[in-house]
């Protein structure tokens, strides 16, 4: 039914719940999983009127820190998949529009299902659907399973 499940994660609690649900599903369907984390690209940071210059070293430093954080989340998810005996690939990309990165990665890796939480970090927790999830839902051509 499904052969490759894309699991976008941002490390939030709900995204972890969605990823463990997705791994259970992958086990039932004997599917592979692709776990994706999207980080925003480097920007100049303004702090109390002082603008940190967007120097190359700053950018490198920042990307290193962000990559490290993403690795931690992705490695933890990959370990869960491995424990369940599910094949898993991890992807980390820098992009300002997470939903676009999610849809592109799904296409590139020929995923046939996206499993994600209704919210990531931030936003209203009740009633309303998270912004990235809404964007993925409106633009994806493949089915999306939303965990709450």
């Amino acid at each position, binding site marked *: 039914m499904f052969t490759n499940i894309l699991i976008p994660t941002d490390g939030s609690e709900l995204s972890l719940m969605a990823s463990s649900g997705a791994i259970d599903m992958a086990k039932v369907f004997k599917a592979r999983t692709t776990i994706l984390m999207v980080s925003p690209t480097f920007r100049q940071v303004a702090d109390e009127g002082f603008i940190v210059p967007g120097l190359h070293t700053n950018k490198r430093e920042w990307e290193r820190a962000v990559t490290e954080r993403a690795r931690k989340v992705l490695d933890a998810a990959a370990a869960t998949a491995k424990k369940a005996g599910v094949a898993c690939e991890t992807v980390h990309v820098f992009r300002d529009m997470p939903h676009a990165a999610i849809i592109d990665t799904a296409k590139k890796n020929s995923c046939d299902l996206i499993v994600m939480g209704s919210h990531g970090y931030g936003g209203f927790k009740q009633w309303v659907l998270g912004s990235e999830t809404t964007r993925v839902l*409106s633009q994806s051509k493949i089915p999306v399973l939303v965990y709450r």
Partner: protein
Amino acid sequence: MFTHVMTPVDGSDLSLRAARHGMQLARLCKAKLTSITVSPTYRQHFQEGFVAPAVPVLRERWEAQMAERAQEVLDQICMEAGQVGVECNSLHVFGDAPYQAIIDAAQSSNCDVVVMGSHGYGGAKLFILGSETGRVLSHSTIPVLVYR
């Protein structure tokens, strides 16, 4: 994985396609399937300036028509489910807030996933999510699998 799959249908092509996917999901998870159709409650009708009074006989006739139409679709799904060896229940309810009826039915039958199309009848087909699907996604506490 999942033990009871809920598939809301309104008779539109996409809703039937989603229901068939839900059926496959139920088969693979060895789960039960419940298919539900929600019809709007009776209102006064007016046609070419003539207002039909809200008399019980008209209401009954209208409800019988709705029930008949709904049952055709639901029977078709249950028949197909039977062919692939999935136990299937059908539900037809009247309500003006389909999403609420769907969520209530999912809760009272202990469903653990809802499988539905991104749109029912009507609405812009591209980019935007159908209104009832959007509402189910916002209000449901169980995962929702959306097909496009």
